[in-house]
């Protein structure tokens, strides 16, 4: 039996023209799916009613923006602009690197939609159904791209729904660093539903750093569906700055041996911000290592969620999986919901996970005060000291400095 569901959120939206088959499938799936409620385990602590019960408008890349406002010069990056979810070739820098291709995703792109979690995540399906002008980045075999790519997402009008779609393919023994940042300055009630598919081929090395900073009235759901092959290294860093609502879903399928996977994140929500980080690492093959460090400092009435799932499949022997989530609540009204989940079906594995949620060390604050450091500065110093472990996971010094600012 199939049921057809009408979702208000999709009202008025024009479907994707990237790949008609993919779009058709997604639309069909969508009409049979329902949005998760808090009854579903994966969304237990994150209510999305406010986001999905609204009607949004789509907008093309024609919005007026001053690109300079968003470019971080110190990164010396190839700046790529995605406006209201649309990759804008016009605003983006020309690529001068051999072996690197930046283009719109087209029907010829065989990797498109091959990794996306359409079946299991309605937001991915939504993106596949309505994404337009997706961005495709590919690095050829044996090519190390030294210059990072900075993908700058900007929403330009209130009530816009942006469905940015990014496809990143690293061929064998290639290397690439991508930074995705998200902004929605001076506007309200925007919803960014971002999906990024990444294939990290044999012996390739990929780093993705996400900076979410859309402001006090914007929501983002960012889903990364990533696949790693033999001997590859993946790093994903997620930094959530001012953002009313964020739900980050990182799904890594480690389908090769001798892989290393690092997932790190930091969040420091204030007011009523709600920051949810879900990670899932599937170890499908033996001899791999994965490590996760997520840290949060929560103020006011903010809410944090961390759910880290590591699944070590049968035959994936000699896996080392480490996971850590530490939080500090700096107000009595902030809450943190942390849940590490290990599912191990192999017998020769080394796993550890720990989560802590606590308050600031009052003794340390008093000690600093007694030396002439004001209480606010003292707290700031302790926050920085606490967060440094995550910041130090950023290998690019310029990027680390710009994020810490």
């Amino acid at each position, binding site marked *: 039996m199939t049921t057809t569901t009408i979702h208000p959120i999709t009202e008025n939206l024009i479907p994707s023209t990237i790949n008609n088959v993919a779009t058709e499938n997604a639309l069909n799936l969508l009409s049979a799916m329902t949005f998760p409620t808090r009854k579903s385990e994966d969304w237990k602590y994150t209510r999305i009613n406010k986001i999905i019960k609204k009607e949004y408008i789509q907008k093309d890349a024609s919005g007026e923006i001053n690109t300079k406002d968003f470019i971080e010069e110190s990164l010396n990056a190839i700046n790529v602009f995605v406006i209201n979810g649309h990759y804008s070739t016009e605003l983006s820098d020309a690529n001068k690197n051999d072996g690197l291709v930046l283009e719109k995703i087209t029907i010829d792109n065989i990797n498109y939609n091959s990794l996306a979690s359409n079946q299991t995540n309605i937001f991915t399906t939504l993106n596949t159904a309505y994404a337009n002008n997706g961005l495709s980045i590919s690095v050829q075999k044996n090519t190390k791209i030294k210059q990072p790519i900075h993908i700058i997402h900007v929403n330009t009008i209130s009530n816009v729904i942006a469905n940015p779609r990014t496809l990143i393919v690293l061929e064998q023994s290639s290397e690439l660093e991508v930074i995705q940042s998200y902004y929605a300055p001076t506007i309200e009630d925007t919803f960014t539903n971002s999906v990024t598919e990444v294939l990290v081929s044999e012996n390739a090395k990929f780093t993705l750093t996400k900076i979410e900073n859309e402001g006090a009235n914007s929501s983002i759901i960012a889903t990364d569906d990533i696949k790693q092959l033999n001997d590859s290294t993946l790093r994903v860093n997620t930094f959530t700055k001012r953002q009313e609502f964020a739900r980050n879903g990182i799904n890594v399928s480690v389908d090769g041996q001798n892989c290393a996977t690092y997932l790190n994140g930091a969040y420091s929500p204030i007011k009523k911000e709600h920051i949810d980080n879900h990670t899932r690492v599937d170890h499908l093959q033996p001899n791999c290592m994965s490590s996760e460090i997520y840290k949060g400092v929560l103020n006011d009435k903010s809410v944090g969620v961390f759910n880290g799932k590591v699944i070590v499949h049968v035959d994936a022997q000699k896996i080392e999986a480490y996971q850590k989530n530490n939080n500090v609540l700096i107000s009595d009204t902030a809450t943190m919901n942390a849940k590490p989940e290990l599912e191990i079906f192999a017998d020769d594995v080394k796993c550890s996970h720990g989560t802590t949620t606590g308050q600031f*060390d009052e*003794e*340390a604050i*008093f*000690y*600093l*005060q*007694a*030396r*002439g*450091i*004001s*209480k606010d*500065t*003292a707290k700031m*110093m*302790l926050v*920085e*000291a*606490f967060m*440094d*472990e995550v910041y130090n996971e950023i290998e690019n010094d310029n990027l680390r400095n710009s994020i810490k600012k």
Partner: protein
Amino acid sequence: MSNTIIKIKNLSASIEGKEILKGVNLEVKAGEVHAIMGPNGSGKSTLSSVLAGRDEYEITGGSVEFLGKDLLEYDPEERAWLGLFLAFQYPVEIAGVSNMNFLKTALHEKSKYLNEDPISAKDFLKRVKEKAALVELDDKLKNRSVNEGFSGGEKKRNEIFQMAMLEPILAILDETDSGLDIDALKVVSNGVNTLKNKDNAIIVITHYQRLLDYITPDFVHVLADGKIVKTGDKNLALELEEKGYDWV
């Protein structure tokens, strides 16, 4: 030598409803060294914490005048800026905050409060070098996180190093001598004596007469059960060493 630095009048304080200080009176003038001795649990550290501004304690009576100001009205950091320094009996370890960054921040905030020019990077390094030498603080320790992984003795040295950096008008040393070996005791005492001048003052809290061989007190007080029960000169310390506290 008649400028009053601190005047504690009938100070009472309690924690969790339990009265710890029961009317402390003490006046310290510029150029003086006062020693406070007394049995465990008598309230010595409580007195220093209350003076430094720890807010867990409830002040139930009395007053404290510091350089003519109502000390109890100020936040802990303001008290530090005004020139009060407490060397902690148990210095706190603060992971991830470097000793240098910590001191630089402290000095900068102080000059901001006093409307003075901040110390230049060059002068800061010069001062660090000079003051670290004074207490023979190991070079490696300067760059580590505040007290993290320091030995007991190293922590105490670090307290005096900080005191030297901050140049307080009144320093309260809460059992800075405990845990120091005899050589360290000499070094630390020598540091304190070098910092001592006619315009500042020191209160040393100690259990041992031996410290007072190096830092000579003008007055020795006995604090027992939350009150100063006896005051004398340095000979009182010798007497206490011999007879214990029972006779006072």
